[in-house]
């Protein structure tokens, strides 16, 4: 133990021993004639946990390996092994906590609340996957995230999600992110942790609702690839945006793309971009201009509109904040609207001697903080939605068949559909029958 810790322990012991001497009254227990010894209250300490830095080291190693496997080694088998290892360690061994998805909330709270200290490990869990995504793509999603790993495990019969549905559903994680950041920043309510569908499975316990949701998502995941990752994960959208700027991202072909189209249905997640080679250059440029125009026109409207909406949402979140909840209950109690007895919160506040105006003042303070934060988050969300609208209506298509810069999770499944990849691997090529991909036709 460090010296400071020794001093603290010694001081604690002295204080504890000197407690009765300091006038802290305690009525003595009975005197036992038989010399009975009073049992001590046991104080089992928390398990000496694998220090945060061990988790961060494993995370870093996993990220490096995942990036290397997806970019250099280009092996699906290796990625599967890596993701299973991550599932075992981060999922079942560490029971899903601390996780990178949840770290968003800690960081949000840290930014908004000057007194909140984000633990170093949590900050690392936030930064590292994003930094890797910025440079090497979403290697985190394929090789390190236990949620992704468990969904990958159950994928048996991928079904293509229609474009319109996909575009619509991809808005959901942005809204979820906005809400989670808003709640974390204003009151320290961590809804991502509370409503995480898979952590109950990792811990082998949890509320019935969440366990059923997790199981349901896994059943869905048998047919719709990675439903949580694509349509719910709040970190996924941040990783996606970061991955757009990546210098090196997974490529379907190890070399050049000759648009042979053999990989067209190779991605179970709809994250393969292609198709502009059939479109004349003029039309492609026109589409791009229209997209930019739509985004520019929609952006101010969306920012203002969603900013206003965000402010309203911010005010609404005070009802979930403990101070806001208490103020609402106290007000209802005074109007005589409380049915079914006095709620515990009111009992507790009365017992603790807090005054009514203090309670109202605290709730007002929460509201005052939540309003600007909500507006900012709403505005940002509006900006994102404007961009998404532009993308949805005027999708960009690339000439080469390449992984989508935002949505590709680096799972390396598409590699085995490319004949050049197969050639690199030294595998004799079987051309597939209609409806099958190269990968399926050449499965060992």
């Amino acid at each position: 133990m460090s010296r400071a810790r020794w001093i603290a322990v010694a001081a604690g012991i002295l204080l504890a021993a000197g407690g009765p001497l300091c006038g802290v009254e305690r009525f003595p227990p009975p005197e036992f004639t038989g010399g009975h010894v009073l049992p001590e209250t046991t104080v089992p300490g928390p398990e000496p946990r694998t220090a945060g830095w061990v988790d961060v080291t494993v995370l870093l190693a996993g990220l490096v390996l995942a990036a290397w496997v997806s970019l250099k080694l280009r092996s699906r088998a290796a990625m599967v092994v890596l993701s299973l290892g991550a599932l075992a360690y981060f999922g079942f061994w560490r029971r899903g906590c601390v996780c990178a998805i949840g770290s968003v909330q800690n960081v949000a709270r840290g930014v908004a609340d000057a007194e909140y200290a984000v633990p170093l490990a949590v900050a690392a869990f936030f930064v590292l996957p994003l930094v890797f995504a910025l440079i090497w793509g979403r290697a985190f999603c394929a090789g390190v995230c236990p949620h992704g790993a468990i969904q990958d495990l159950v994928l048996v019969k991928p079904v293509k999600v229609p474009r319109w549905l996909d575009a619509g559903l991809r808005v959901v994680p942005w809204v979820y992110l906005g809400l989670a950041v808003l709640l974390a920043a204003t009151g320290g309510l961590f809804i991502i942790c509370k409503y995480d569908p898979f952590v109950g499975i990792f811990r082998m316990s949890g509320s019935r609702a969440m366990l059923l949701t997790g199981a349901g998502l896994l059943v869905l995941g048998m047919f719709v690839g990675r439903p949580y990752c694509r349509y719910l994960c709040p970190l996924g959208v941040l990783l996606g945006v970061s991955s757009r700027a990546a210098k090196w991202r997974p490529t379907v072909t190890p070399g050049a793309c000759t648009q042979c189209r053999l990989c067209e249905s190779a991605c179970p997640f709809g994250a393969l971009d292609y198709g502009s080679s059939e479109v004349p250059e003029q039309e492609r440029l026109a589409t791009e201009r229209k997209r930019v125009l739509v985004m520019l026109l929609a952006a101010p409207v969306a920012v203002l509109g969603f900013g206003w909406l965000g402010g309203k949402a911010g005010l609404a979140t005070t009802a979930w904040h403990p101070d806001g909840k208490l103020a609402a209950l106290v007000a209802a109690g005074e109007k005589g609207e409380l049915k079914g007895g006095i709620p515990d919160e009111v009992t507790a506040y009365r017992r603790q001697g807090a005054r009514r105006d203090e309670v109202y003042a605290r709730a007002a303070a929460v509201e005052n903080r939540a309003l600007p934060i909500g507006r900012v988050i709403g505005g940002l969300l509006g900006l994102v939605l404007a961009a998404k609208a532009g993308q949805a209506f005027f999708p960009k298509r690339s000439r080469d068949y390449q992984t989508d810069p935002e949505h590709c999770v680096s799972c390396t499944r598409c590699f085995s559909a490319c004949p050049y990849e197969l050639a690199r691997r030294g595998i004799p090529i079987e051309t597939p029958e209609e409806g099958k991909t190269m990968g399926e036709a050449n499965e060992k």
Partner: protein
Amino acid sequence: MPENDGKLTRRGLLHSGMRGAGLLGFGGAAGFLAGREERSRTVWQIDPDKCIQCGLCATECVLEVSAVKCVHSHGMCGYCELCTGYFEPEPIALDEGAENQLCPTGAIERAFVEDPYYEYRIKEDLCVGCGKCVKGCNMFGNGSLYLQVRHDRCIDCNVCAIATACPSQAFRRVPATEPYLLRGKGDGEK
């Protein structure tokens, strides 16, 4: 991606710019936040003086069996034959019959010490942390029974689900080296 050379330059520049900005932003945020880091590890604990035994400790914990259990500060206990934390109000008889016991899971053990003193111990494997005995002890007795988070069971969530639900905000973070907020400042003292 090697595409049209002209496009690459513009897009490449844009991407490099985004990348740089992103790295600066994330790295800066992490550094700034890490600078505020608390030095010691902290864990969750209940302040027994704020607790109102609402029962949420038993139901809100993410674990199937809550990590919150009742603990007994023997130094504060009166060792009464009629313990109001052990017996139902108006027991039929002052014995260990289940119909007389307050605890719904039978987690309190009653042992005769000497006339007229009895010792009461909590069997942690049976306790669910509902706080019924705590209520009985606080209302009529010395308040030697109270709820605490047991750290050999607690998995130390980022944000404790019980803490979020607690109506009296009795949960707070304490140093991991002193993870309990005990009443009576130790036992066995006279």
